[in-house]
């Protein structure tokens, strides 16, 4: 195991009576893609801000790239890139100006930044757009520019807060591909997401957060293997209620959300057998995924 680039112990943060982060420990090793998963309000963004030294914790220790945070957060941030949840590019600037101005915040000289711009734009799929005005870019292009901006100081660690929220599938796949190329370059990624597919594809290791606490930790495979039955059958249609009563004897775990029944089991053959001949019921048989683990651990209730 390589050295930890981010280590946090016993992080706590409250807003008034509301405990947003309630004792979180994290260790991220160099070269990992580490995921923070959780429903809205689980404390993901707050944890990122704590790690960057932007807000103060009530308790806990943070070390980022060997620097104690928040005391030496400035020094740590010099070697970190951040993709915020909402794009905050400069609307008055062109694509290239956004990169130059941001690079200057790191103390880089304009000449050195300008030398890096072609490679950054190529990386972001924005070659030839250096002089484009910001309002001419699509949402996906802005997101990629934000990603390129986060790399302007050649950081060894990049924090990403919901990097693909609000993007269409094409744009999302392109971002995923770009992020994978970053880990291949040896950069460490820490990302928050509530897209299970994103976490499953990208993260080598992740934690699932709920109400400010870690409820599970491991690789996506290990979490699926350790927390949930391997097979799922989703059933809906008229008469599903009557059928559900029977299904309870056929699978170890049967759950219902609205009009859909979920049957989890290592062997779902008995469930499938009982569905054959039930022509009015529609069903889908699939392997369990991270979303099933997530819903099992964090519940199916809305979090707004």
């Amino acid at each position, binding site marked *: 195991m390589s050295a930890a680039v981010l280590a946090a112990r016993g992080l706590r943060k409250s*807003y008034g009576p509301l405990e947003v982060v309630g004792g979180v420990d994290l260790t991220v090793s160099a070269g990992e893609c580490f995921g923070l998963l959780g429903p809205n309000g689980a404390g993901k963004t707050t944890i990122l801000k704590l790690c960057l030294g932007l807000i103060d914790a009530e308790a806990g220790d943070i070390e980022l790239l060997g620097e104690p945070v928040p005391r030496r957060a*400035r020094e740590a*941030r010099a070697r970190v890139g951040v993709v*915020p949840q909402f794009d*905050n590019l400069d609307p008055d600037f062109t694509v290239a100006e956004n990169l130059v*101005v*941001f690079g200057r*915040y*790191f*103390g880089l000289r304009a000449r050195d930044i300008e030398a890096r711009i072609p490679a950054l734009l190529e990386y972001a799929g924005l070659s030839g757009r250096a002089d484009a005005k910001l309002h001419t870019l699509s949402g996906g292009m802005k997101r990629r520019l934000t990603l390129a901006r986060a790399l302007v100081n050649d950081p060894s660690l990049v924090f990403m807060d919901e990097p693909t929220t609000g993007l269409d599938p094409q744009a999302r796949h392109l971002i995923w591909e770009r992020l994978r190329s970053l880990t291949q370059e040896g950069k460490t990624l820490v990302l928050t997401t509530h897209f299970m597919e994103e976490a499953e594809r990208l993260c080598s290791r992740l934690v699932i957060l709920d109400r400010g606490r870690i409820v599970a930790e491991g690789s996506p495979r290990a979490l699926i293997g350790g927390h949930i039955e391997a097979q799922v059958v989703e059933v809906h249609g008229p008469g599903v209620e009557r059928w559900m009563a029977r299904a309870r004897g056929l699978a170890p775990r049967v759950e219902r959300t609205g009009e859909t029944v979920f049957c989890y089991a290592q062997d779902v053959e008995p469930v499938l057998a009982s569905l054959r001949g039930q022509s009015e019921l529609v069903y889908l048989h699939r392997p369990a995924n991270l979303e099933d683990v997530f819903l099992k651990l964090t519940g199916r209730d809305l979090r707004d």
Partner: protein
Amino acid sequence: MSYGKLLAPPVLSLRFVPVWRRNWLVWRKLALPSILGNLADPLIMLFGLGYGLGAVLGTMQGTTYFAFLAAGFVGSATMYAATFESLFSAFSRMHVQKTWDAILNAPLTLEDVVAGEWAWAATKALAAGICMLLVITAFGYASVPRALAAVPAVLLVGLAFAALGLTINALATGYDFFSYYLTLVLTPMMMLSGVFFPVERLPEVVRTIATVLPLYHGVAIVRPLLAGQVSAAMLGHAAVLAAYAILGFYAAVVLTRRRLTR
């Protein structure tokens, strides 16, 4: 955040310079409307009132009313330029565009950002004051050396009102919030600071109030300087402006901390 951290004196670094340069780059793109906006209003007022009222009033404190008013308008134009930049423009960057959030992800502290905005608003105020001085000089109401002598005073007025503006900015809930400051603080201040008429004519109570207003002290330096007079009292006026600038900046840092780093 503990009170100790909240109230800690700001640690300043040269990292504020890139923030200033960012605003400068934006301003360069919008320079013409910005200059017109800063200058047209005070100049129209100056020429309208200066010539119009001046014809009725004749002289004021031994000089033409136009020259009297012009010196006052150097102060008020500087005040308004610093104020608009540190209220509306800074609020856009802080709250609407989230430019400050982006900057804070780089190795800058909140102090650096507030200091950069402070320096920038003071720079714009300085530019507005210098433009007024140029016009006054061009029309023969001040000599070049006298106008130059007034430049440091203009900078002090700019720093004081930029700091006060950033304090209000840190408290603002929206653009409408600034109306309170503009109508309840700045407009009466303009009336009581000797811009349009000498404060000496006012009742004693009002005169006492006037002496705590930063614009009063700015005008009290600029007007004699443009008339070629220098006195030790100017140091006292400058000290009041410097105190407004320094304490205002400190208040802006503390209130912005409270707003953004909870």
